[in-house]
Structures are given as structure tokens and as C-alpha cells.
């Protein structure tokens, strides 16, 4: 059943707001802004939307009220980055089941203006038990990833300079992206000079916190062919999780569930890692990029550090990655903007940062829920 869905559902429209500090807009406003842009992108109207998937925006009912829509299918998901991939896969299933024809996926994040913190008393990372460890000073998703990175360094000899190569590559890409929040390139020396937040991670290993919104319009291939832009096909998608014991870092850096997702997503797309023209890797922190590359089989376990250090992730390299600048430098849109960048790369809309002939682009997230989606052009099906 799932295999039969390969290439049947498409992204018809994408929309993004400006990113940065937008104090005049709340999360709902940012979502509406992005959705208007996504509908304009594909030439559909609010009246065509009959499925609504909301992420991070606090309330679906209010969102429907302020946009004046009455979808056939409605759901809402928690504001965690892993849910972008989950929502997109849900949309595919809902369309395939005939429960909706045109799904709007809408994300709004006013974290910068709202003064969001990812550590301290409001820390809700993990499965909610974080308060138990506050007396020892343990808090924040950054520390969780610092613990994983330290273990990787001990186990395999990975270095923080190798993390710097990731951050510097994404910043270089952001310098070519007019929408990116952080566009000034930095050298590895400048990266090393940045202050530690939670050692071994430094400031530039952390994603940004900013305001913005993203929307995507998904529909069937048949319907999308009559719309404004060439459809971008979901050639493969897969999901797995590692929820058991997930208050603590996984022993295997999520490798086993990622390997299951990789096997499934590549089989569905009829392609392998070497066929990918560009990668969009969920980069909440630089080490996640290393773990993803190992888990999805781009390099052997433990070898991601040296693997990223020679420019493979840069435009012009073997696997241009996070060509928008990603969460580290474009905007922390919790996976949504990376999926949009994948679509824009396949469409050839990325200007100075365009990967020539990008026919297959893979999105992947390493987290307690692992997702991956392979986007392809019409040509990639042939």
C-alpha cells in the first residue's frame, strides 16, 4: 500500500514569511502570512483548502476562525521540530485515503518575540521529567546533544573542528540566501573563538531562535498538474521512533531507527544515498548532522567527522546540504523551511544557491521520532 503511494502525492505550493524579529505578528499571523503565500504560489484559494494540519500555532479552532475556513479534516500537533516530517506524512495518508484533497500545513513561530528559552525553568525537552535534573544544573536540548557529542568524540575521535566545518558551510549557503537571518560567513578560526554554551558545543553549533511562518500545500499528482507551478513529488517517505528511555541520549545516536527509515525511504523512492542531489538535514545542533549522515548510510558509523571536514556538504561538493543555511543560519523553522527549501531546489527556484539539476532532494530528522522524505521532480520519475 505505502509503496504504491510513491510519487502520487505532491507539494503544489509553498510559502514563507520574512524571518527574524517580527514583534507585530503573533504565531497565528505568521501562519496566515505563510499560507497566503503558499496559496498564491500554487494558484489556489482558501476555499480550496479542505484539510488543515496546524503545527506550533496554539489553537486550530482559532486559526480556522481567523482564516474563515471549514476543512473536512483538521488536526494539530505539538511545537516540536520532529513534527514537520510527521505532519507531511500524515497529509499524504489523509489525501491517499480520500479524507481531503487539498491540505494546508501551517506553521507559525513567534519564539523570538515571545522570548522563548530552551533551557531553565520552562525546559520541556524530552518527555516532561526534566525538572528532576534541574537541581544538578542539567537542562536544555543543547546539553542533551552536548552529551551525545562528547560520547561520539570519546568513541570515535570526532572533533569540534569538524562541527565547525558544518556550521561554516551552512553559513556560507546562507550568505547566498536573501531570506536568511544570519548571512555573514565565518572562518573555522572564528568558529573556534565563539563562546561555549554547553561544552563541547559553542554558540555557532546552536540553531537560531527567531520569528517566522511556513506553509505547504499538498495535493494529488493529478490535481497538481493543473496548478501554477510544476508539482514536486513525494517519491519516498518513512518514519520510526526511539521513544523508550528517551529522557536520556540514545546509546546508538538513533542509528538503528534511522537505518530502518533509510531502508524504507530509499526502497520507496527507488534510489539510494548516492542518488541524492542535495540534503536537508534537521540541524537543531551541529552534531545532529553527523548522526544523520551515519544513520542514513552516507558514511560508515563513527566516520562522519572526517567525512564532513572536506567540503562535501558545501554547494559544489558531493552532497550540498542545507542550501538555505538551515536552522543554524537561515531560520529556526523546525524542519518546515528545510522541506520548503527541498521543494524550491527541485523546482530550480533557488537563485545563487541553486544546485544544478536537483532532481532528488532528501529531508531527514534525527530525534526520538525519525522521519525522512525524498522529494523529486517529474524527471526523477522517468
Amino acid at each position: 500500500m505505502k509503496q504504491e503511494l510513491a510519487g502520487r502525492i505532491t507539494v503544489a505550493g509553498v510559502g514563507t514569511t520574512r524571518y527574524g524579529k517580527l514583534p507585530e505578528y503573533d504565531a497565528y499571523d505568521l501562519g496566515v502570512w505563510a499560507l497566503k503565500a503558499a496559496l498564491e504560489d500554487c494558484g489556489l484559494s482558501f476555499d480550496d483548502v479542505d484539510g488543515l494540519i496546524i503545527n506550533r500555532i496554539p489553537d486550530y479552532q482559532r486559526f480556522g476562525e481567523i482564516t474563515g475556513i471549514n476543512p473536512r479534516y483538521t488536526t494539530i500537533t505539538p511545537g516540536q521540530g520532529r513534527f514537520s516530517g510527521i505532519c507531511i506524512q500524515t497529509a499524504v495518508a489523509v489525501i491517499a485515503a480520500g479524507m481531503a484533497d487539498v491540505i494546508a500545513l501551517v506553521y507559525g513561530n513567534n519564539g523570538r518575540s515571545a522570548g522563548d528559552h530552551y533551557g531553565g525553568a520552562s525546559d520541556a525537552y524530552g518527555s516532561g521529567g526534566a525538572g528532576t535534573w534541574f537541581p544538578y544544573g542539567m537542562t536544555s536540548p543543547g546539553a542533551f546533544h552536548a552529551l551525545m557529542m562528547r560520547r561520539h568524540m570519546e568513541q570515535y575521535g570526532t572533533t569540534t573542528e569538524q562541527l565547525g566545518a558544518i556550521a561554516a558551510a551552512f553559513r556560507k549557503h546562507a550568505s547566498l540566501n536573501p531570506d536568511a537571518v544570519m548571512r555573514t560567513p565565518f572562518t573555522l578560526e572564528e568558529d573556534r573563538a565563539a563562546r561555549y554554551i554547553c561544552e563541547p558545543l559553542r554558540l555557532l553549533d546552536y540553531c537560531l531562535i527567531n520569528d517566522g511562518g511556513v506553509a505547504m500545500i499538498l495535493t494529488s499528482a493529478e490535481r497538481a498538474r493543473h496548478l501554477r507551478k510544476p508539482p514536486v513529488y513525494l517519491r519516498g517517505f518513512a518514519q520510526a521512533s526511539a521513544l523508550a528511555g528517551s529522557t536520556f541520549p540514545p546509546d546508538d545516536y538513533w542509528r538503528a531507527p534511522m537505518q530502518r527509515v533509510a531502508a524504507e525511504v530509499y526502497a520507496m523512492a527507488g534510489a539510494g544515498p548516492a542518488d541524492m542531489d542535495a540534503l536537508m538535514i534537521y540541524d537543531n545542533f551541529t552534531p545532529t548532522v553527523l548522526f544523520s549522515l551515519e544513520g542514513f548510510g552516507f558514511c560508515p558509523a563513527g566516520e562522519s567527522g572526517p567525512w564532513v571536514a572536506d567540503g562535501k556538504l558545501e554547494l559544489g561538493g558531493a552532497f550540498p546540504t542545507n542550501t538555505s543555511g538551515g536552522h543554524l543560519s537561515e531560520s529556526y523553522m523546525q524542519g518546515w523551511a528545510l522541506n520548503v527549501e527541498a521543494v524550491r531546489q527541485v523546482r530550480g527556484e533557488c537563485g545563487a544557491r541553486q544546485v544544478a539539476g536537483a532532481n532528488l532532494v532528501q529531508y531527514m530528522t534525527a530525534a526520538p521520532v525519525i522521519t525522512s522524505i525524498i522529494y523529486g521532480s517529474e524527471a526523477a520519475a522517468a
Partner: protein
Amino acid sequence: MEAKPLPPDDPANRPFWEGAKRGILVLQRCLDCGRHRFPAARYCAQCRGERSEWVETRGVGAVESWCSFHKAYWPAFERDVPYDVVQVRLDEGVRVFSNLVGVPRERIRSGLRVRAHFEAVTPTATLVKFVPL
């Protein structure tokens, strides 16, 4: 001066903190499959059994990883930065985050064997930290 956060007063976890006050590391143990757990939970995540007891342990384990906070997320930690947090796996299989006492940063490594060290932070709260075995 603002105080550091204290353990949440969750009635389910009281035996653990009461044990700490007596200098004993106490864990919840499933009466159906024998697996230890902390923090407390009604059901065992391995066998989903509901019957459990609290048992005394030796409080011995090994460091799995560590990190050093250079940013203070609470004002009361400002005087401590940079401070280290360790991830310890107790021999019973339960994991905890904690601090090492009396170990310079350059001597911390994964695999370091440690035992619980009890530190009274208020008259009612004792934290479970670790020292080398």
C-alpha cells in the same frame, strides 16, 4: 541570593529523596520483571506490570558522558559556571544526570566507575551526586 532549583516534590518519588537523606540510593523495582526504574512510574516500561517496591542499591555505576555548562540557566548557577553534568548509568541499568564531586574536568571520561555521594542542600533536600569508586 536566589536559590538553586530543588527536586520537584512529587509524592511518587518521595522514597528516592527520603533514601538520599539517609545516605542510601533507593530505586523503584518492578515486582513482575525485576527491572529497576527512576523517576517513579505506575507501570513498568518493560513489562507494563503495576506492582512495584522501593529497594536499596549500592549506588554504584559508570559515567557514560559529560558536558560543561558555560551558560547559567538559573541565576544561582552563575557562581558555578563552568560546571560539569555527568550522565551516569547505575549498575541496575537506571540512568541519571548528576554532578561529580572532587574530579577535575580533565579526569572525567566515559567508563569512570563512580558511587553515589549524598549532598544535603537544604534541611529537607539531599541531592545524589557521585564520587570515583
